[in-house]
């Protein structure tokens, strides 16, 4: 069950060339790049593990691609995403975030229902 978080998850998995192009786009905008990974893709999991530190002041994608390569080697069966961060006033937030690695099989989520008063149900997601 494909987790469709991230800006491009409905397209076929991005090739390295496509990833590089997106990184160049973010660098062109003056955004900082960060690589994060996790084995817990719950939609409310805000804080994935950071791979190294966020990278500021880069002019070229080569450095990020090298870090991505290293991250993939170290975290073979986890989700990896790349974030691009914009520190300008009025934003100060992530502007682009997309998946660059998924585990070979994605187990997905099961919806847990807890019946409450009346017809109300309390919902939560569990990893399968």
């Amino acid at each position, binding site marked *: 069950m494909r987790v469709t978080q991230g800006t491009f998850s409905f397209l076929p998995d991005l090739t390295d060339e496509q990833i590089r192009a997106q990184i160049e786009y973010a660098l062109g905008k003056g955004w900082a790049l960060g690589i994060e990974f996790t084995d817990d893709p719950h939609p409310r999991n805000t804080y994935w593990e950071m791979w190294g530190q966020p990278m500021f002041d880069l002019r070229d994608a080569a*450095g*990020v691609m090298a*870090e991505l390569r290293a991250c993939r080697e170290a975290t073979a069966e986890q989700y990896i995403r790349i974030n691009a961060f914009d520190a300008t006033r009025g934003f100060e937030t992530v502007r682009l975030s997309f998946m660059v690695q998924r585990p070979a099989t994605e187990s997905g989520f099961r919806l847990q229902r807890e019946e409450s008063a009346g017809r109300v149900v309390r919902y939560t997601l569990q990893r399968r």
Partner: protein
Amino acid sequence: MNATPNNIPKPTSVDLRALYAETNIGSLLTELDKDLVGLSPVKRRIREIASFLLVARARERLGFSSAPPTLHMAFTGNPGTGKTTVALRMAGILHRLGYSRKGHLVSVTRDDLVGQYIGHTAPKTREILKRAMGGVLFIDEAYYLYRPENEKDYGQEAIEILLQVMENQREDLTVILAGYTDRMNTFFQSNPGFRSRIAHHIDFPDYNNDELLQIAEKLAEEAEYRLSEGARKALGEYITLRRQQPNFANARSLRNAFDRARLRQAERLFQREGAISASELVTLEASDILASRVFKMDK
């Protein structure tokens, strides 16, 4: 995305002049000639390198195999002879010729690359390298990386990483090492890996007295000052004396002298009574130069 069909014949000749015009490096080379005083052997080498790279491009167009040329360089010479300035221009030239993706310059010394404790160096060096990727990395006084007398020194780690990148990521980064000629030679002898990876050694001779005077005049012009006749003569004497004294740093020393002359001019004008004309505000007089300690030193 579209492959060239096989039945279109490859070009059999190339117009180098047109290629030259296309890359627009002509304007950069002209700028180089105009903005940098002297340095004629350096300028000649740069033109040679540019021509070589242009021909490499042309060969590529005609379908000849070309492994990417090695571009790493070593600049040797005394301080203040224009090494950093030329490195910056070189980055622009490489970019225009298509050998540097972004064409920016990152300028560092040993302390930027080497850490203070175990495990500190590798991330520090990689950080710098990431920033320099796509452009040119200029390492000033590179020989300080190598301190064999201190066993706790972490410079060796930085050296290994640099050597690896210089060999394996030539299309991502060009490295320029710089420093005093004799110390660089010693450094290369102890670290032969560098010498074999460097394609171009360029020596930066000291400026002669006329060139130094020209530089001083340029500085004045840029700052919108002018030198009186007397000041010019005094400056010539200053240069002759100063260069014999220790720690002479060519253009940098001239800049310092110019700044001190401006201070003295300001002091002199301040002591005057009455209105000061625009022309006086702009002019440096002989006394502003002759007050320097340099003139008293051999007494």
